[in-house]
């Protein structure tokens, strides 16, 4: 499947600032969902066009040696001080993302999400996950995620926490 590209090139700095503000407001609004998260827990969100999950160890290693600002941006959601702090970091491949969970959104889906008011973002995220427009990867085992306090959040998104042979 060819990678999707955004319809218009983003004005990166402003867009990132807007996105950070939106996600920060979203997490602040639903802080109860993240109250159990251990400090240090981290999630990420990247656009599908910036995702190279399957690049493999060799490519990822090369990228790790040279992560720079030309890498696609990843919205990083860090648990700290009883809440979530939102930031932007370069995404240098899945092996070096340093996250527990990674959401990969089709570019259009991410743009749609970031056009919503903050009270509508998580419900929309849930719908987009179900529709397959947002994919979700885990970098920790079930037990580690439970210990880190993710269960409420994942459940709120309707994600099958224990596997889903359907």
């Amino acid at each position, binding site marked *: *499947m060819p990678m999707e590209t955004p319809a218009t090139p983003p004005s990166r700095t402003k867009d990132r600032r807007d996105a950070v503000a939106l996600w920060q407001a979203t997490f602040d609004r639903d802080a*109860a969902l993240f109250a159990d998260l251990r400090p240090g827990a981290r999630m990420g969100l990247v656009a599908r066009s910036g995702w190279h*999950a*399957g*690049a*493999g*160890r060799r490519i*990822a290693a090369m990228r790790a040696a040279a992560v720079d600002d030309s890498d696609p941006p990843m919205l990083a959601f860090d648990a700290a001080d009883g809440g979530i702090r939102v930031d932007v970091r370069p995404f240098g491949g*899945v*092996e070096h993302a340093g996250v527990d969970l*990674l959401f990969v959104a089709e570019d259009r889906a991410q743009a749609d999400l970031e056009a919503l008011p903050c009270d509508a973002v998580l419900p929309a995220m*849930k*719908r987009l996950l*179900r*529709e*397959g427009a947002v*994919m*979700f*990867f*885990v*970098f*920790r*085992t*079930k037990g580690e*995620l439970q210990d880190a306090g993710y269960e*409420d959040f994942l*459940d709120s998104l*309707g994600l*099958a*926490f*224990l*596997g*889903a*042979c*359907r």
Partner: protein
Amino acid sequence: MKPGERKLPELFGPGRIGRFTTKNLIKYGACCVSNYNERDGRISKRELARTRVIAGTGCGMITNQGAYPDPLGEGKAYFRQIAIHDDRFLPEFEEIAGYIHDAGAVAIQQILHAGRYGGIDLGYCIQPSVVPQTLPHFRPPREMTVEHIADVVRQHADAAKRAIRAGFDGTEITSFMGYLLANFNSRFTNQRTDAYGGSIENRGRFMRELIDGIKQATPDHPLIVRLNGAELMDRWGGNTEDECFELMQQAVDCGVDMISVTVGWQEAPESSIGRDIAPGHWNYLAARAKKLFPDTLIAFGNRLPDPVMANECIRAGEFDFWEVCRPLLADPDLVHKAAEDRLDEVRRCVGSLNCLSRLFRDLPYTCTMNPALGHEVEPGYRITPAEVRKKIMVVGAGPAGLECAITAAKRGHEVVILEKSGRIGGNLVAYAQNDLARADDLASIVRHYEVMTKKLGIEVRLGVEATPKLMRGMLHQFDVAVVAAGARIDRDRLRIVAGQELVLDAIDVAHGRVPTGREVVVIGAGKIGLVVAESLASKGAKVTIVEEDKRIAGDVMPSFKWRHASWVEELGIATLVQTRVLRVTPQGVDVASEKGGERHLAADTVIAATPRLPNQQLFHDFEWMIDEVHGCGDALVPRGLDAAIHEGFRLGARL
């Protein structure tokens, strides 16, 4: 020829695979591992007893469950999966091959390297590329080197040789449902840039090497490959259906003896085998394979539980062998009943996915419909003639009471069922009436009990409520009373709520005993509340669910929670969790959120779907009136359908 065989001549006609003939065109599919075995991969007594039953199912070809081929356990997907990487495991494989041959069937051993879903005892799994997991059940990935790939191919070939030495006639490798073979084939997990990745030709290289390796190691024995007709992963870069069929072409070109067409990956975002998929939905994939590869045997059975439908498909040339697993877990006598024209007695697989729900909890699999599955080795689960014939009264014709009644009757007891309503089935009837997934699956359980009560001569007294007064009039007529009176909504929980007399009972609503309006609030988001809410919303009502707990679907089977969550979303049902009801008025409901704040929910109907209480009064009432009083199902502890059926069976088997 038996009468049913005459009716289903294609299915019961002989077949052939390689140099082996089969007595019919039914293949028992390995489908999933049982998790009954030893932690080191040795086959257990429990497994042997189960396999003996499987061997006796009457299938022409029987596939033994998947064994992992490598000593490290990188291919091991389940904690108690069987292993075939060493000769020390062979005695039990020999025994199983013997059971299958004694039953006149062709014996196939599946070799299952789980790849992305493997390494269950390790801290990692192996894959063609490092594509992270989407399900937290599985292990973080490591990329395979070319040398590692060669080792795995050799391990498969060695495993195949070992299986043949144990007496199996052929072997099978599998991509179902997202295992190592699938990981190489799929663009989703194979993003290598070497000879094993990139083009479809390269992605299929691992499969071709596996086939060549096994064929060279066991040249006189058939090899079956299970391949996806659809991965259901294509939106995220997986193979399209066209690519799946190109990969099948590669397998055909390598001389594989049979392709078993499968559907979906475990992590696919849509259903493939659940109750919400109509039987026959995926048949088009098998038909396409048969059309493309007319000279290669095609086996198929995903969400195809019915032998009559399978017979028609074979007649129409859609596939050659009906591959069936879960329906035979639900009823190991399915093929015999079909052959004897007793299909009305079949216990259908209802697609509850209890089996897979348990596997994802790392438990041995069991079956809602077959309480004996996995317990064949235990005498307590065998239906044996009763030493003393008793007259048994069963109070309640729900699943627990009915299961107990037919099990006891099979053992020779005289059984009478007292049911206060006008029909059998209990609340299962109401569940079926409101179920959005596939109501007929649930209704089939009731039909099964209707047939069996008649065939076993069980007297069913409808419209009779068991009371102490009634019992006083029947003293000394019965030896045993079984209280299977079910459970009721615990309305006492609402006692503190003002206006609670305006609240309807969810069970009454589900049975259609009371009318409902257009604006509904359901109190409680357990299974009953959800089913009622979904049903009303699907008929156009505006529904809100209020739940005190943090989450909805607390009592729903793990593999079905997502389905309810999805319906709630699709039907626009509002859910308020961590919220309690303060008061009910003719205008609606006032609620308070745990987070603070009160609000009014306008409603013309308020339904209580709060947790249930067991109906246990008869235990006390009957204690001094009859020799034995027992109970089963929700009358003991309110739970789900599987607990009701299993307890009813266990009690019936020991009375």
